């Protein structure tokens, strides 16, 4: 079974990087530009995991996480946060809000792959 993953980041190049990285190991990857866009995509498709940036326009990563955790349909989807170096507060907040893990930008693509594979197993 192919695992379906949603990559959410407002940076076009980071979004593509995550997409190509996961596709190289056979995952199906859809992308969203911000939290709002991601919410809309989740209405249409089911995802096995979400890769989530924090600082985004319209609806940021933490707000998005709060929203899906309070919705029983999505409450258990594992979420991996993409955080920026030095922003300890964001890491703690996201873990408290129920993120499964976080990875600090800039990361090596294979580090992300390993993390995603771990979480899905």
């Amino acid at each position: 079974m192919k695992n379906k993953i949603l990559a959410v980041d407002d940076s076009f190049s980071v979004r593509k990087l995550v997409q190509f990285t996961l596709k190289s190991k056979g995952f199906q990857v859809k992308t969203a530009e911000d939290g709002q866009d991601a919410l809309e995509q989740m209405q249409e498709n089911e995802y096995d995991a979400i890769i989530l940036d924090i600082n985004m326009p319209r609806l940021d990563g933490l707000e998005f996480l709060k929203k899906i955790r309070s919705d029983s349909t999505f409450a258990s989807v594992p979420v991996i946060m993409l955080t920026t170096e030095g922003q300890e507060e964001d890491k703690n907040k996201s873990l408290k809000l129920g993120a499964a893990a976080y990875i600090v930008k800039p990361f090596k693509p294979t580090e992300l792959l390993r993390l995603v594979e771990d979480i899905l197993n």
Partner: protein
Amino acid sequence: MPDEINPSCLKSESDSDLDKQLLQEMYRDFLKEAEELLDQLNLNLIQLEDDPADETILGDIFRNVHTLKGSAAFVELNDISKIAGLMEKKIREARQGAFTISSSVIEIFYQGLDVLILILEQSSGQSGEKLPDSTKSEESNVAIASIISKLDAIPDAMPDISVKMSDQQSDHDGMSADSRELLNIYKQSYDQLSVLKHIVYSSIHLTDPDSLATLFSKQIEQHMSVERNAVWLVSRRNKVVEIARNGKAVATEQRRILDVESSEVLQRVVNEQLVVWPSSVPGVNDVFPKYQSPTLFPIKGRKQAYGFLILDPEEAAEMEVYQFIGQFAAMMLKISKLHQKVDEQRAELDEMTAILFQQNTHLSSLYHVELELMTISDPIKLCRLVTDAIVNDLEASSAVAFLANADGNQVEKASQSGRLEEIGNLKLSVKNDDIFSQAFQTGRMITCQAEQHTLTLGSNNLQHWIIFPFKGRERIHGIMIVEAEDQDLGDPISILMNFSGMVLDNLNLKQKVSHI
């Protein structure tokens, strides 16, 4: 295991190879993104000049440099990441109220923008590949160090020159009338110079005519003593359109459009490229009734003006400055047109290069196949070689070759390569009006784009397919059914099929000769 599902994207490699490959692919995306981000940053800085405390603009700038910082770090453009990071930090401090954004702060951000552009330009080779850090010029190293220390120093040591000038004036109330007048003239010229410098600075990164027009109108509105102003640009069919008025862009549906030929005023300014004011052409007030003393400065082009500035100037003394702005606007518009052309051509060139590169790869792999084909004596073996080449060298998903019987009313499977289920010795009649018969009878290639339906071959259903004839000089020897998502494969496969057709001709001939 996800590994087994989609092995086609990347062959198995070590982690570091995979990382390297993925990050190289990211670099191109990063360049595109950085260019967009910097254009946006430039626009936001112009907006910020109007309203340095606007929370929305500050938020936009913050996210913009935050994104740039993050993605530059992936592709190891660490100077970009550092400068963007400093900008992010300063904007955060300003939003938290640590200092207010002055024109000097904005000026330093403009300088930062320039350095970011410089680094981007110097970090890529001709085909957009990332150059090693060692190729960085001394000049850019100095610029980077300088902007980092300037950004770091915000908000300390920030002399605001314009404030100082007015302070000076009040300090010197006791001086003679002559000196005061001299000082006034000096101050005025200083202001004018700083306006011009400002226009030059802020427009240098803009490449679309509408934004340029708006910027010019805004700068005139803010920094010059005119009651009202507008920027009009010539559009197609000899019409002029009011793009910006009193510092703001005019909404598309509200733009005034005039025919150049409809009035002498417009002909003078657009066709003859002359400055026009009420006493030079009396009709000006009728064309622009809202202006007291409408003065039109052409934005001079080669045969005809690109457009004109229209102002209600208080004093004639600033005429030269307005004319200069007109000339400068013309230069910027020319540059913007060139930019557009270069961008279009670059995109076209990229596309062509990619196609050429692919064709070249295909052709070089076909060369070996063709050499092998020349030595073959059995049609079935030939089919095997060709189906293998289509799948292995040209990377189609599957290929199935059929050869015709002597009567030419049936084709039979000769070989099969790729992912499809084995179809055995499937025979197809080619005397019907189905697609196989059509390809066989007409000798033409048929693609699924032309005939939108699924093709059934034994137990397989093909969505993306192309059918090629084995075309000889006098007869069609059979057909080849290829399954490929990439329909551009049509060309190289056709070459291979034509060559195979000729080889089959020769095999037939040899057979006949040996019978005799």
